[in-house]
């Protein structure tokens, strides 16, 4: 096939008498973005290093068509005494660009990284944020046919990460560039990648459309009954400490959902705020339930409380609940990962809600 960019056949790497990568057959077409996920030590970095030519395979072969740039750890490796511009030339050379090509890219890159007015200063006078932004911006604007990237998005502050993700989403997806992308954050993988490869102990565990593989991976990650930390090791002042959080019956989208919370009282308080924050299994914040929002004050002497959600606004999927108890605005107790929650399939306002992922749903009125 003409548009095939990367093809590996039975690729394997043996390090220290252990196969850290084995029987890898993958194909990447022109313009395709392939995500690689898996636990630490699953072989993700080894695969990237092999494709970038840093490691020689011990078994099988691979074939890469077109110019390739490999970016491992974009945020590091600048020379402190050289100016941003000189560092960009050096980095560019490492990535296969001539000086003329870097010169051409530089205005766009520095603009994106927000370092235009300081590009001729030595990098040691940059903040660490500026350095990683420059590294990322250079990497993201590379004109190579094939990009092999490791965690490029794990740099900068939240605002820059959001900007970067949006940029990659629009540029990478619309270009003919093929990308092999390793990331630990599933939401980014879902947004960026067409296909995902799940590596487990050096082998391909699953390969397919991004959402399907990410769902399966997330499901394998969640522990069934979380162990709570000892009360004295938890954060908070300790006027009250939670003892149990129980979910009754199976929760379904749009249905009535109930849970019960129990605690012990160590010092009285008339004004408790019980908060439960909801995360999807891959770590995105979804929702927050707070007893203060119901307008009732809860006294610590009550020792238990019941929450009823009359129309459960969560799509079907797996969630994680964190528990925090406040008294007069001060944190008393915190249980992270207090419970897992599986929401079953159900109708939302009598209709199927069109989302395959865990998310909060909202009643709406369109005119």
């Amino acid at each position: 096939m003409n548009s095939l960019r990367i093809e590996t056949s039975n690729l394997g790497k043996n390090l220290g008498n252990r196969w850290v990568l084995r029987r890898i057959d993958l194909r990447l077409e022109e313009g395709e973005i392939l995500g690689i996920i898996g636990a630490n030590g699953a072989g993700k970095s080894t695969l990237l290093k092999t494709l970038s030519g840093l490691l020689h395979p011990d078994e099988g072969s691979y074939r890469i068509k077109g110019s390739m740039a490999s970016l491992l750890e974009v945020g590091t490796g600048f020379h402190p005494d050289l100016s941003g511009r000189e560092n960009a030339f050096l980095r560019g050379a490492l990535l296969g660009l001539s000086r003329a090509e870097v010169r051409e890219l530089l205005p766009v890159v520095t603009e994106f990284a927000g370092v235009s007015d300081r590009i001729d200063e030595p990098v040691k006078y940059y903040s660490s944020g500026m350095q990683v932004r420059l590294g990322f911006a250079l990497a993201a604007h590379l004109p190579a046919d094939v990009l092999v990237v490791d965690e490029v998005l794990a740099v900068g502050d939240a605002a820059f990460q959001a900007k970067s993700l949006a940029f990659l989403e629009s540029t990478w997806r619309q270009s003919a560039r093929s990308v092999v992308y390793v990331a630990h954050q599933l939401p980014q993988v879902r947004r960026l990648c067409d296909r995902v490869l799940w590596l487990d102990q050096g082998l391909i565990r699953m390969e397919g459309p991004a959402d399907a593989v990410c769902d399966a991976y997330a499901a394998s990650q969640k522990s069934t009954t979380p162990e709570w930390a000892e009360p004295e090791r938890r954060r908070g002042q300790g006027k009250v400490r939670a003892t149990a959080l129980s979910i009754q019956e199976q929760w379904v989208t749009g249905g009535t959902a109930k849970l019960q919370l129990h605690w012990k009282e160590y010092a009285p308080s008339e004004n408790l705020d019980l908060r439960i924050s909801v995360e999807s299994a891959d770590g995105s914040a979804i929702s927050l339930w707070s007893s203060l929002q119901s307008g009732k004050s809860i006294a610590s002497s009550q020792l238990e409380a019941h929450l009823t959600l009359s129309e459960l606004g969560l799509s079907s999927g797996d969630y994680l609940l964190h528990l925090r108890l406040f008294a007069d605005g001060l944190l008393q107790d915190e249980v992270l990962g207090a419970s897992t929650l599986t929401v079953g399939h159900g109708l939302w306002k009598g209709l199927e809600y069109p989302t395959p992922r865990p998310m909060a749903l909202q009643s709406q009125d369109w005119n």
Partner: protein
Amino acid sequence: MSSVREVTAQDPWWKPQPDSAKNARRMALAFARRDLRLRYVQTQLGWLWAVAQPLILITTLTLVLGRVFALPAEGLRQFGLNLAVALPGWIWFQFTVSQGAMSLVANQALVSKAAFNRSALPNSKAIVGFADFLVGSAVVALGLLLIQEAQALALLRLPLVIAYTALASLGWAYALASVSVRRRDFLAVLPVLLQALFFISPIALPSANFAPVGWGIFYWLNPAVAMADGFRWAWLGWDVWQPAHAISAASGILGFVFGLLALRWRSRRLSEFL
């Protein structure tokens, strides 16, 4: 027309990558530029040091060694000539060997993260050293002009000697850099070894006047013998050659081939060691 990179587990270790020559050239220039930029960062005199260094060395060595050997005025002049034409080449040689040997280890963060032709790092040191050599040679040329010693026709031989110096020093740099990736012992003793090499090489005196008795062929295995006498042959037009020089020259060129192979062999597993 786009390039295709095809790698299989069975590829022999000496097989070159398709675009590695272009890659090596670009990277060597980029690294050399980096080093040259950094060279005189935070110095007052900056590039004047490049001129001052060879001048100071030639003058002190001539005066000190001339005093040691109690040379008369004419002898001192001959001695100074011998030293001055060989010294920039020697400085370049030992710079390339010492810096090149360290270059892979010193840049290990880069080497373990980016795939580029590994010879680029030692090569960049040779380029930086060559810049110094050019400055030093300009000083020498000026001096020779002043005392009317330069042989215009013989100077055409200079490129040949320069090429030989580059090859001979790079061979050692490649080999030592490859070994040092796993065993750094050599890096620790290298300055001493190079200092010793300076004393057993005909830098201050031509090999005709300086060949230790009883060393036999071992003296001629030193590639720096052909280099130092070569510079006299090129700058001053002296006919310095003896048949044994062929051994020295062959040792330099074979050393280059050996170093190149050692580096390529080591390159394949470099990221596993660093």
